[in-house]
């Protein structure tokens, strides 16, 4: 489940390549400009058959594959933290005094390898070159599954995998010459749903490397392969 929400976070970046739904006019976008960085507070909602959670957090992103997200309690303390840098994933749980670090591929299957596989799929999938502004295209995804992409006005509205996963992009707005979605809805093949909403994002600002640094002070560092289900 956690992997799915991670995927939802990552999916925000694709949203930067997206547009549609009677959203901002194309003229509001600067040709060739894309989202290089995002810094934003977010609201994350997870709904599954046995678990519901809504929380506020802060996320930073730098193209192509750097993400850090901190999930906060109502009084500002850290519930959990995630950092993704390429294939390297770090998860911290300060309350438990533990952190996990390793390659995504090292994740034990029992914790849901599939979610992270999707994450890479999301991060690595730029809008296909030569795709029409409107309509649907199909292509083979990185994981080998068939991928169907719905486009409108040159933006991706929806992505589907033949294995059952779906990502939808909503609430597009023009920001700093880029049209981007402020809301993403993800459905897993098992029926779990994750919603990620951006609140007042700053895009394409300079993000110092320190903003992506996760403090492991006082935490017991374990290999990612020992991650337990949370």
């Amino acid at each position, binding site marked *: 489940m956690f992997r799915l929400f991670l995927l939802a976070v990552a999916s925000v970046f694709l949203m930067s390549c997206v547009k549609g739904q009677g959203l901002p006019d194309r003229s509001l976008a600067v040709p060739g400009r894309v989202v290089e960085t995002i*810094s934003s*507070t977010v*609201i994350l*909602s997870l709904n599954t058959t*046995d*678990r*519901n*959670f*809504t*929380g*506020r957090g*802060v*996320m*930073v992103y730098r193209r192509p594959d750097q993400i*850090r997200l*901190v*999930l*906060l*309690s*109502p*009084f*500002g*303390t*850290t*519930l*959990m933290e995630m950092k993704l840098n390429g294939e390297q994933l770090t998860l911290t*749980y*300060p*309350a*438990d*005094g533990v952190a996990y670090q390793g390659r995504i591929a090292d994740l034990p299957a029992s914790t849901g390898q599939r979610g992270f596989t999707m994450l890479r799929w999301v991060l690595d999938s730029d809008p296909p070159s030569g795709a029409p502004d409107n309509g649907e295209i199909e292509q083979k995804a990185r994981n080998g599954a068939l991928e169907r992409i719905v486009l409108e006005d040159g933006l991706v509205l929806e992505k589907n995998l033949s294995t059952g996963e779906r990502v939808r992009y909503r609430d597009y707005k023009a920001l700093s010459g880029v049209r981007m979605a402020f809301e993403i809805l993800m459905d897993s093949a098992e029926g779990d749903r994750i919603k990620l*909403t951006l*609140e*007042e994002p700053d895009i394409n600002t300079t993000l*110092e490397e*320190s*903003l992506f*640094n996760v*403090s492991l*002070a*006082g935490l017991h560092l374990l290999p990612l392969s020992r991650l337990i289900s*949370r």
Partner: protein
Amino acid sequence: MNIITDYTHSAKGLCLFFYRLADKVISAVCHARIVRFESGKIRNCSIARCFYLLLVALALAIPVDARSLTPVEGLETLRRSFDGIQDFSAEITQEKQLSIMKKKMVMQGEVRFRKPDLFFMDIAPPYSSKVLLKDTVLQQRLGAGAELQRIALPPEQGLSRWFASIYKPVKTVPDGMTVRASQAGGLTTVMIRPVKGGQLRELIIVMQEDGAINRLSIEERNGDKTVITFRKIRKNIGLTDADFRLE
């Protein structure tokens, strides 16, 4: 005058109120976990624990005599501050300085409390959220138009049970923490630090001379810091059920 006392107690078997109080405070930060459900019931909810932290701070809104405090006196002051309170409300400003953000996240809002088991917090846009805790039932709505989330807490985390345990005076400082108290410039400051590691590095409560809380600061070991400033504190104003509704 500036008097600072430093005291670390190692006695065991403390069953006093503040032990429980402090446990709640520390737990709120040190044992926070993501909300988890198991068959419709929550297994662990750190968010709820944080309410206790805020309640501790709000308790200090009740006027007390400013004076030099030993750690035990400081802790006992916290406990006594709940006496005579039936309800209260306060406006708050919450400032979060996080390592992940270049700028502070500033939130404005209001909190309300009514004995024995009601707590409400309303944060204004742009980070709008409403949270209502009624004993063991936590409800929250994050963002405009968001769905209402309902969480059932374990009975031992209920507000009513917690308040039922505050009648014994504090005589010793609980294990595992260092308490420092100081008075300067008309302000009384109580600092609590866990002796060992954990998520919390330091909790600071600053009171005015009349005992009204001025500020609550929570610093985590990762360097992140939250400061809550209180103002317009009103007590025993007859809050009704209508003041504790999530619209």
